[in-house]
């Protein structure tokens, strides 16, 4: 944990990987080498470039990775634009970890897990998936449904096909929005693909993606017989402090930065739909 | 002003208007807020009296987009703001039914509002009908419009600078002056634009003292009707309207008398050029420091 609220530590970008036309994954180490801090899957960190801005990003790497942290970041604003043009060796500021985590050691333990992600929504789930892979004996079947606009927009494609797809006990279902040359897999939106695949309403589901995809996916899951208390998602709102004090990221009486970002759907249903 | 309420009710009843933009009674005589009334039951709380200081013109910008006509109650000075908004195509005339409401000067707990102390007169610049009384046509206030500006002009430059520094240093940048101003109708204010480099929520530098209010005054110059809302709403009691009034006084002296919100909007002092216009050098001649 960063020792002081609001005061970050310095980190160094040690590798920049181009994932998709608008997503890059940044490997970050502390100045002394090693990780900046320990975290649990689903937790976030505040990254900043002084003079440009500071924002919250989910930690994409698994805590089981002992060497570095990774952040998959989509270029969509001022700060992310700046991050996208930086090279290896660039220092950035890092503080965290913030928020809660997916209950990998509690509610998810011993369960079959269904991961459903859309676009950059894979970033927070990747941390859980790799955590589960590292502690395979603690979990049941793992199924991953992942969709993006096109083949090029699938984040972490090499890791997915070279590692996840080849691992026993993991089923990966990929889909893209539009037909594309050289793509022989499924074509269609994530929620309808989930319906098409059909899943037994047991185990736990982790969903992350654009709000509209989350909405239709949960609807599809409910129709299959899943209960709200089996489904988890992770939220994102504008944040400044990361510690429940600056007052802007609340949904009802819950701060996304502190009480979230991971919410179980039954809890989320008790809160105003102001997100 | 029972007549205004009765007329509003009948215009609602016969379908001429869909809603009434007026004032609502609050906890006591001075506690009255702008409000929207859509039926007779809601009109129970309608009030028009000496506590209706707020200028409803600014609300018309948003209200004009609603379906059907809106009845708006405007005091004489408010009609100048409305007409200026018409000139700037910020409101459509057809979207409103305007009752020009007579005014004997508006008050708050401390007495007559500053803007009413130097009342600009009781003529209505735009209206569908006027409801007033003889008393409403009598002059309000005894302060000459430029009295306080002249006082400032008579100061030395150093004194004047100290005066404004003292006043503006109290600014907390709450933006009430900007948000209430009927001339401030930019969809996105430059000071709210993170890309502008001048966005600021707090006096990190002496920006408020030196720049913010001056920039705002210049931006509304020639369009400011001198409605005085900026000073009325300032929680820090800064007499912001004096900056605008000074600009109005200068424009009147340099280009001839002009009142924003009147006229045909074809030739306004700052948007038209004549060979008789003052040369920029006038700044040096007029400055006394």
């Amino acid at each position, binding site marked *: 944990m960063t020792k002081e*609220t*609001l*005061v970050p530590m*310095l980190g160094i970008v040690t590798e920049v990987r181009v994932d998709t036309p608008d997503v890059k994954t940044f490997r970050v180490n502390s100045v002394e080498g090693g990780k900046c801090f320990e975290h649990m899957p689903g937790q976030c960190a505040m990254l900043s470039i*002084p*003079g*440009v801005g*500071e924002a919250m990003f989910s930690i994409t790497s698994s805590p089981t990775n002992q060497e570095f942290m990774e952040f998959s970041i989509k270029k*969509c*604003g001022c700060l992310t634009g700046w991050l996208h043009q*930086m*090279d290896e060796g660039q*220092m*950035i*500021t890092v503080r965290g970890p913030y928020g809660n985590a997916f209950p990998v050691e509690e509610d998810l333990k011993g369960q079959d897990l269904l991961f459903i992600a859309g676009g950059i929504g894979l970033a927070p789930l990747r941390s859980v998936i790799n955590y589960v892979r590292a502690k395979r004996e603690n979990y049941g079947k793992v199924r991953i449904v992942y969709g993006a606009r096109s083949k090029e927009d699938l984040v972490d494609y090499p890791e997915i096909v070279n590692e996840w797809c080849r691992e026993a006990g993991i089923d990966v279902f990929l889909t893209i929005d539009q037909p594309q040359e050289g793509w022989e897999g499924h074509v269609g939106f994530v929620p309808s693909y989930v319906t098409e695949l059909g899943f037994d309403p047991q185990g736990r589901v982790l969903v992350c993606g654009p709000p509209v995809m989350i909405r239709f996916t949960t609807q599809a899951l409910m129709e299959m017989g899943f209960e709200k208390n089996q489904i988890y998602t992770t939220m*994102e*709102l*504008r944040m*400044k402090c990361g*510690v*429940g*004090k*600056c*007052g*802007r990221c*609340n949904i*009802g*009486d819950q701060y996304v930065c502190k009480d979230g970002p991971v919410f179980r759907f039954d809890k989320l249903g008790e*809160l*105003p739909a*102001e997100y | 002003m029972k007549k205004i309420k009765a007329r509003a009710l009948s215009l609602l009843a016969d379908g001429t208007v869909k809603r009434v933009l007026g004032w609502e009674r*609050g*906890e*006591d005589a001075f*506690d*009255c*807020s*702008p*409000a*929207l009334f859509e039926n007779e039951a809601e009109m129970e709380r309608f009030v028009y009296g000496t506590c209706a200081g707020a200028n409803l013109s600014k609300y018309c910008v948003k209200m004009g987009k609603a379906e059907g006509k809106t009845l708006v109650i405007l005091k004489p000075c408010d009609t100048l703001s409305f007409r200026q908004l018409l000139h700037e195509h910020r409101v459509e005339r057809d979207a409103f039914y305007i009752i020009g409401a007579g005014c004997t000067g508006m008050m708050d707990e401390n007495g007559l509002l500053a803007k009413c102390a130097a009342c600009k007169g009781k003529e209505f610049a735009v209206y569908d009908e006027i409801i007033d009384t003889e008393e409403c046509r009598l002059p309000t206030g005894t302060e000459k419009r430029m009295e306080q500006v002249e006082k400032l002009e008579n100061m030395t430059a150093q004194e004047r600078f100290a005066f404004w520094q*003292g006043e503006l240093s*109290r600014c*907390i*940048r*709450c*933006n*009430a002056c*900007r*948000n*209430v101003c009927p001339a401030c109708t930019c969809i996105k204010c430059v000071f709210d634009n993170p890309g502008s480099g001048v966005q600021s*929520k*707090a*006096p*990190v530098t002496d920006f408020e003292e030196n720049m913010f209010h001056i920039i705002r005054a210049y931006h509304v110059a020639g369009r400011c009707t001198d409605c005085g*809302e900026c000073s*009325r*709403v300032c*929680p*820090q*009691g800064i007499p912001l309207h004096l900056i605008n009034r000074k600009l109005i006084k200068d424009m009147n002296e340099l280009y001839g008398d002009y009142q924003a919100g009147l006229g045909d909007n074809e030739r306004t002092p700052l948007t038209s050029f004549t060979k008789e216009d003052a040369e920029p050098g006038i700044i040096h001649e007029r400055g006394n420091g």
Partner: protein
Amino acid sequence: MRKFAAEKLEQLLSGISMPVYAPVEDGGTVIYGRYEPGMRLRLDKLGTDRTPKEVLFPQWESLMHFKMEGKKIQLTEEERANEDYVLFGVRACDMQAIRVLDRVFLSDPVDTYYAARREHGTIVGLACDAPGKNCFCKNFGVDPAQPDADVVLWPAGDEYFCEAYTDKGHALLNGWDTLEADECAVTAIKEEIGKKYDALPFAHLNLNGFDGEHLMEKFESPQWKKLSMACLGCGSCTFSCPTCQCYDIRDYDTGNGIQRYRCWDSCMYSDFTLMAHGANRPTQLERYRQRFMHKLVYFPSRNEGMYSCVGCGRCIEKCPMNLHIVKVIRALGEGEKE
């Protein structure tokens, strides 16, 4: 219980070796400013134009500095406050507001910038001998006769009664030349204050249903549309409020590096929750609702029923359109209290 002659007050304040922040005039407004001998104290002013929160949580403060050189960043933290001071003349409502701020800034993880200022201050409370028509503090569990401060003063004509309640308070009061006083006199003063308060228009509001249990009911009330209609979206209420503490963190290029600072922000502003893909409170209705829901529902839901309104009445006085919290309580509540 001790007492001293009212005419000695300025002398006592001048004799304090630490900086003293007290209600003083600033161009027609009253602020908690640095007191210097000869300044006119405004202990008569209820609902000062600017609040004591500014002493603990200023409108803007520097957090840290960065030097950028090529790919390198150098970070220097701003020094935390380290000078003892006295915050003088804090009313019971404003003192409760400081307790609200404590809940936010001193809860885990502690905000060390605030904590340092809080730790170095000794707060002298001032009982309200004449609560005004905008006062409604008792609704929120505040006793206008008993500020929850290190030292409390009770004005009584040409005398002040005083008592210390904490070590810091005793340390301050021990340095003052005071006389032994009778407890009973203060009991009578407190009773008198209670009577005056009870006669006020907003003395007894009904806060039934303003809690976490009724969160969705309050949130979904159709009243918000009407209540928020006239809201200009300015920050007068938030900046004048003794408990509003939402803040922004920004970077400023000083020309000689980057200064990261914190400044007050307002939930009334359109960019408060704005992200690259839009805002989750897109119109003034949502922003207005957020402010009052936070004070009356969200905050108590997270803080064992403690409201983050203290009934100081400043929003009644400051809102340009008179859209104050009492109206919200009446419109959303269950009517008058019996």
